[in-house]
């Protein structure tokens, strides 16, 4: 795929090989990175960490390994042959679950309803997981909702918090300190080390937030506890 050929390879100390692409604003690029990641995994059988425009292969860099990585990157690869899913994530945006929503709306000169509408109306692509176990980095946030991270991070953001930071939106799978603005909360668990797989999210899949009431939140929460809740995931069609 020659349109994604603008990359550089760096040794990451003596423990990894970093592949850094130019910034591509192309949804195809995520699928391309996923295919390249699978290729590297198969060839080297070592971990590959992923971020927006990078893959980090946990193999000691040498002229041999770097040449081999370069060779693989030059190779054609079948992209988008697997179908991806859109996961519907229920979110309560009501005051008790959204400590920063009011201040956020005010700063953006929007009503809270407008923020909720814009945030929940589109599907976001999962670029990669990082920061915390199961934390999805999502692309495609409406530029009107972009807002810099807090200068002083909050010491505790609740598990399930749905938040906005910079140009990104995401969900906190566990309670954590964090600098993003919390505009809602989901009752569903996003990471279970005992489940197989522990997280339902794969880079290339999408997430769509669906606004729910406080009553629905509590209903889903009790379904989660009794083990009867299932995430609704819709298959995407790719030609």
């Amino acid at each position: 795929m020659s349109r994604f050929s603008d990359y550089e390879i760096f040794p990451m100390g003596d423990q990894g090989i970093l592949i850094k692409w130019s910034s591509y604003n192309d949804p195809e690029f995520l699928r391309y990175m996923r295919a390249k990641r699978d290729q590297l995994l198969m060839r080297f059988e070592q971990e590959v960490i992923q971020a927006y425009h990078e893959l980090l292969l946990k193999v000691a860099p040498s002229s041999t390994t770097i040449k081999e990585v370069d060779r693989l990157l030059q190779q054609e690869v079948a992209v988008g042959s697997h179908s991806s899913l859109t996961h519907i994530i229920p979110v309560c945006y009501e005051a008790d679950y959204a400590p920063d929503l009011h201040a956020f709306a005010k700063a953006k000169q929007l009503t809270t309803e407008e923020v909720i509408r814009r945030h929940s109306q589109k599907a976001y692509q999962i670029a990669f997981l990082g920061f915390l176990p199961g934390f999805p980095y999502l692309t495609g946030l409406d530029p009107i909702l972009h807002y810099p991270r807090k200068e002083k991070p909050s010491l505790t953001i609740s598990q399930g918090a749905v938040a906005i930071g910079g140009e990104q939106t995401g969900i906190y799978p566990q309670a954590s300190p964090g600098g993003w603005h919390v505009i809602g909360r989901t009752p569903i668990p996003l990471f279970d080390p005992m489940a197989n797989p522990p997280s339902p999210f794969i880079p290339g899949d999408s997430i769509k937030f669906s606004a729910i009431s406080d009553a629905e939140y509590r209903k889903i929460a009790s379904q989660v506890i009794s083990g009867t809740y299932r995430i609704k995931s819709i298959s995407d069609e790719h030609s």
Partner: protein
Amino acid sequence: MSTVEIIRPGLWSSVQDLGRFGFTHLGVPHSGVMDSASAVFANGLLNNPENAAVLEFTLSGPELRFNGESFFVLSGGLVQASCDGQGIAMNEVAFAKAGAVLKIGAITIGSRGYLAVAGGFKTAKMLGSRSMYAPLTQAKLKKGDILPMGSSGYGQVKGAKIKGGLSSILPKKNQKIILEVYKGPEYDLLSSSEQEALLQPVRVSKLWNRMALQFEEKLQHGLPEIKTSTVLPGTVQCTPDGSLIVLLNDCQTTGGYPRLLQLAKSSLAVIGQLQTTDKVFWRLLL
């Protein structure tokens, strides 16, 4: 099955093996022992596999009871310990009778210590590893925790005692602490005077734990924030206000701050033994 019971956990103690691999794509860090040299050494003396789980303690050690008899080794930072009142030498195999109470004191040189037992600790594996890391497991040990120990043939063959010297990674008095590093992916964004400033000696601040260690000195710089990128334990980041932070075993798998340096693998165990006020010299490898 023999067990060990925690009477007092110490400042920050946890069960660790050599780490949890294969799950970084889910955002799960490697975790594992901070000073692998000392942990592997202790396991070696007991003829354990090098990945046998050990108890890692930080600054002040735990007090625990052996519910069954066991051979054990203490390694890592310099510390006094006694078992039922009898002094225990570090870096040597010792024996605890059933019911014996081991008291480990405060570390005086270094920051992390290891208790290895014959057969290793057999706490539950999560995602393939016994390394404690919240939310997969509890974050640290607490009073009343029971740790099962594996069975081992150690000591059954008379006269078969493994001896070995540990060339200690602990800094000797007046010896310089050197961290070997490589340039990080964003090193070349610095001006040459900023690069020179970056490589000056630095001192460990009060802010350090299993996730990261921050130095006192700040770097004046004009670096932009970067889009979230991949990081490893040993990545040295620079925050907008100039703080220099080395990411460690429990660090997140991705980060948004410029990556200026990357620790050599051999320096990871050294940084695992640093404590507040230690002065560190960088050695840039090319």
